[in-house]
């Protein structure tokens, strides 16, 4: 993690160190016309004018989490090996909504694009190659399920904990993509469109579904009444091999942008249209039953001493709960995303206002509305902010800063800034860093 912070610091500080050597552009439209979409295609939404460039290289990193109940502090505790003390837990419990949602997503990758000239001066073609690492989690849970997970069942002594409906999906995949775009630079309008096809390798997948499940804990734990409908799938319970093909899949992205030069643009994209098929190494644990458990039955005094803790391992638990274990293949459909946005130049092309609608195919995910304004300054600095509402979270405020040189650009920003300032109470945060160059 220290090396990551060092790299981040370098990337952030470099623009300001180098800023004195640069010149101010007259129109900021091209510079500001970048990264404003949520479902961006960095190859041609980066502000570079491919009529004058032949190659593009970009590196990006983004992480964000959104929840209607889980604070950023708790989320970062999980992410950064933190310790969740009882104060934090009680704070989280106080914020729970009944139907609680949480998702996070980490993407980091590298893209190279090459410009292929056509006979027509106003048309360019791009052939690009992409690698990205994706890691995402999506969780729906009841108040009691989180309390059972973080505090145990003692707080439910002589009480019933409602566990279902609870869902969890956690997976990671590597994306190896190849894309093609056509760029039309007409005097009165520009049209960009492109498609990307990717091969996916997934080293890790876990999912849990609990439906109509509850746990009653009798006084002093004298017995447990458990009603459950569980379906748990797990790929590679050990440490995953980063580039392993436990699951193999395909993914397609499509992008379309139309705009009037130095005035406005409309963009649409469809992302993550694909699936991952896991081989027969998916362990599945499923059961739908109810039990009344009073402990391991022993026949006499001699059996008491052998009833140790080692008896309560996973296998014996499965036996007690009558959970069937099987191994099977499994296909996971990736949660696709649809994005639509409008971008308008303001203040004599010194500013850019964007509004957009984003939707991700996640359980109980609400459409995500956003608006963003970016303003260019002297020496090609840029600074802006965003407002958003939807998804799993509440109202979000974002900020972005950047610097452009002739063939090099760095942007750092966040779509949800409150989580950094109020980690104990606010429930979303994000951070992205993008570095791009053309030559």
């Amino acid at each position, binding site marked *: 993690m220290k090396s990551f912070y060092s790299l981040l610091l370098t990337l952030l500080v470099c623009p300001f160190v180098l800023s004195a050597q640069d010149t101010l552009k007259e129109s900021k439209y091209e510079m500001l016309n970048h990264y404003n979409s949520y479902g961006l295609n960095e190859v041609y939404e980066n502000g570079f004018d491919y009529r004058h460039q032949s190659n593009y290289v970009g590196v990006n990193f983004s992480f964000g989490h959104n929840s209607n109940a889980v604070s950023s502090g708790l989320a970062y505790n999980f992410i950064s090996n933190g310790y969740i*003390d009882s104060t934090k837990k009680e704070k989280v419990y106080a914020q729970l909504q009944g139907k609680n949602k949480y998702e996070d997503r980490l993407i980091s990758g590298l893209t190279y694009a090459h410009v292929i000239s056509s006979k027509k001066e106003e048309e360019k073609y791009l052939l690009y190659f992409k690698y990205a690492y994706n890691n995402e989690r999506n969780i729906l849970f009841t108040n009691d399920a989180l309390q059972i997970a973080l505090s145990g069942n003692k707080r439910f002594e002589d009480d019933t904990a409602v566990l279902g409906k609870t869902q969890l999906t956690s997976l990671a995949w590597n994306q190896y993509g190849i894309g093609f775009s056509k760029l039309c630079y007409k005097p009165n309008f520009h049209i960009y469109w492109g498609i990307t096809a990717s091969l996916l390798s997934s080293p890790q997948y876990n999912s849990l579904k609990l439906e109509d499940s509850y746990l009653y804990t009798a006084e002093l*734990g004298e017995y447990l009444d458990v009603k459950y409908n569980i379906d748990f799938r797990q790929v590679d319970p050990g440490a995953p091999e980063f580039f392993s093909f436990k699951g193999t899949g395909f993914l397609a992205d499509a992008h379309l942008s139309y705009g009037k030069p130095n005035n406005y643009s409309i963009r649409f994209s469809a992302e993550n249209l694909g699936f991952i098929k896991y081989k027969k190494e998916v362990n599945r644990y499923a059961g739908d039953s109810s039990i009344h458990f*009073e402990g391991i039955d022993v026949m006499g005094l001699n059996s008491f001493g052998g009833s140790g803790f080692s008896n309560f391992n996973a296998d014996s638990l499965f036996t007690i709960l009558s959970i069937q274990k099987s191994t099977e293949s499994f296909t996971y459909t990736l949660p696709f995303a649809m994005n639509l946005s409008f971008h308008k130049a303001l203040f004599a092309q010194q500013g850019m206002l964007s509004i957009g609608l984003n939707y991700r195919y996640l359980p109980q995910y609400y459409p995500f509305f956003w608006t963003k304004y970016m303003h260019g300054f002297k020496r090609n600095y840029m600074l802006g902010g965003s407002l958003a509402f939807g998804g799993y979270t509440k109202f979000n405020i974002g900020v972005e800063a950047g610097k452009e040189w002739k063939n090099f650009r760095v942007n750092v920003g966040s779509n949800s800034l409150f989580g950094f300032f109020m980690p104990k109470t606010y429930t979303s945060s994000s951070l992205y860093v993008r570095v791009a160059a053309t030559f």
Partner: protein
Amino acid sequence: MRKGKINILLGLLLAMMIVMLSACNKEKKLGWEAEYLAPLVNADLSLTNLVGDSILQSDANNLLYLIFSNQVYSFNLADYAIEIPDTGIGSAASLDSFNIGEQKFNLTITLGSLCKELIATGDITNVLIGNSIISSNGDSMVFPGLAGIAVPADTFDASFVFEEVNLYHGVLYGWIHNEFPVPLENVQYQLRNKVGGELIVSDTIPYIAPHDSVYKEYDLSGKRIEGAFWVELQNFDTPGSSGQKRLVDTSDYIKLDMKAAGLRASSATAVFPSAELITTTEEITHDLGDTYLTYIEAKSGNLNIYLSSSVAEGVYLKYTLDGAFDDKGQPLTVTTFLPPAPVGGVSSVTRSFDLSGYSMTLTGKNHDKFNTYTQTISATIDSSGYLRTITSADSIRFSYSITNIVPRYIRGYAGKDTILVGPETVPFDVLSKIQAGSLDLDQVNVGLSLKNGIGVTGEVLVHQLSAVKGGATRTLIAPSVIDNPIRVERALDFPIRPTYTSLALNNTNSNIDELLELLPDQLAYNIEIFVNPDGNDMRYRDFISDQSNLDVNLDVEVPLSLIANNLTLIDTIDFSLGGGEEDVQAISDGKINLIAYNSYPLEAQLKLIVFDEYDNIIDTLINNYTIKSAHLGADCRTTDDRKIVQSIDISKDRLNRLLLGKKAIVKASFSTPALGSAENESCNGHIKIYSDYHLRLKLTGDFKLDFGDN
């Protein structure tokens, strides 16, 4: 100035992000603490769990009875009576005579050939007669008289069968046929060895009528006969046809037809036919003292046979233990082959035969003996088709032994004997786990039972029976039993059915209750057993099986109506919490709840001490926890369960210590509630224990678990 402000603003923003990210990672410990309540162990205990299974029964009123049987002594007469010593016998059979089969030969002289012999003599008379007969063939003529007719000797060669034989015994059977039309007189013939020239047979027959024959027998005993010998018709006369015409047929003949049979040789060089050399039946008798057996079934044992032969021909040997059969009814027969002995040497073979499962009659070949095996051995020569020489100096030796016989069943007369048993002690396990305290039993019924599975009548004399606990001893006082002979009838056979003899002991005719209230862990006894006190009254029909015993038991029936005072049960049990620290490392603190539901009218004090593998005490997990008695109602039965909860603190250190535990000693003291106590307001005296009482114990865990990299 403006550029500087923007730089400052961006710099602040970035610095803030870095600080926040760094702050997120200050605590390196991923994890959280959770508290869990869970049932661990659930046990529904009854007195069965405490005193052992299958010894508790209840009556129609659900009153529990302690019913068990403790063996005082088990007498197996087989240990005394069925000891079969190893036995063996060796024998040799010399070949003073042996069969070499029979031989046949003949000499035929036709009338035509005889006439040619007459013509060949050149004597004018013989020539005329010879020609006259030949020319009259088919017609009739008057035969003249002739005298001194001799026929040249003929050689018979049987050397392909035998080269030379010295006969121990033999008979030559001869038929002299006269098919001539005239009588023969003074017929002389002889047999003579061709090389040595010794005369074998010589005889003269005075008269043989036409178309008649004469039968003769000649003893060949002591004769030496070569494989080639002469047969000679030395002379015969004929008186002719006495002037009467007879039909002339030159194919008419005189024939000497000989058969040598019953040939037993003392030595021979021959191609021996397959023939029996030796057959012998022998008996061997065990000396079993006063025991006379007529029949035995072997659980195990071996028949060992050693055979040797100097005979230069292969010999088949067949051994039969007469009257011995396996469980499928097959006789015990062993056949083996001895290869031909080398020149000047012997051939031998050793065989061992498993007698397991065989039944054997021990009455001898005439069924008038005891302890006697009968066996038959026969030796048969194997014809090889080659000339061999066998002499009377050749012999076949055999020896056999019957060893390691362990009978499964015997029949006969077991003898008359007196067996002293004791003074000895036997464990009395039922109450042995009760280490201290006192017990007052309302009633005790004990049967001193004798179960006889032996087919022998006996008498048992109990001189002493005592209960022993540590240094304390209580001796049975019961005039009906002690030093009073107890007659034990023999068991019945086919199938074996034991007989039972029982003597009742109770509070009124003995002090048996005092013996049990001592809570003994041993019984001491001194017993005398008389076997067949009336002698052989069953006429050799005693039987003894290795599975049938004379068992002396104490059959105890105690209604559980009692007064217990700190009746202390101590038992050692295995103890293990699990594999190791990794199994419980997440547990940081907690406690175990012991929840008891007691419906017994017994108050229990529990103690559980845990030991490591070196028998060092590492923890007293339960230290004198009291499980109160249930409340006795007006009918002196308990009404509801009494719930008692005790908690045992389990710190992480204590848990790690308990992980070392390998065994534990459980000490439980039971007392019936005293009259006037809160649990017993009106029940005086003995308290009855019913089968629907129970003690339900539950262990629940109340643990604090620390998840993560702690």
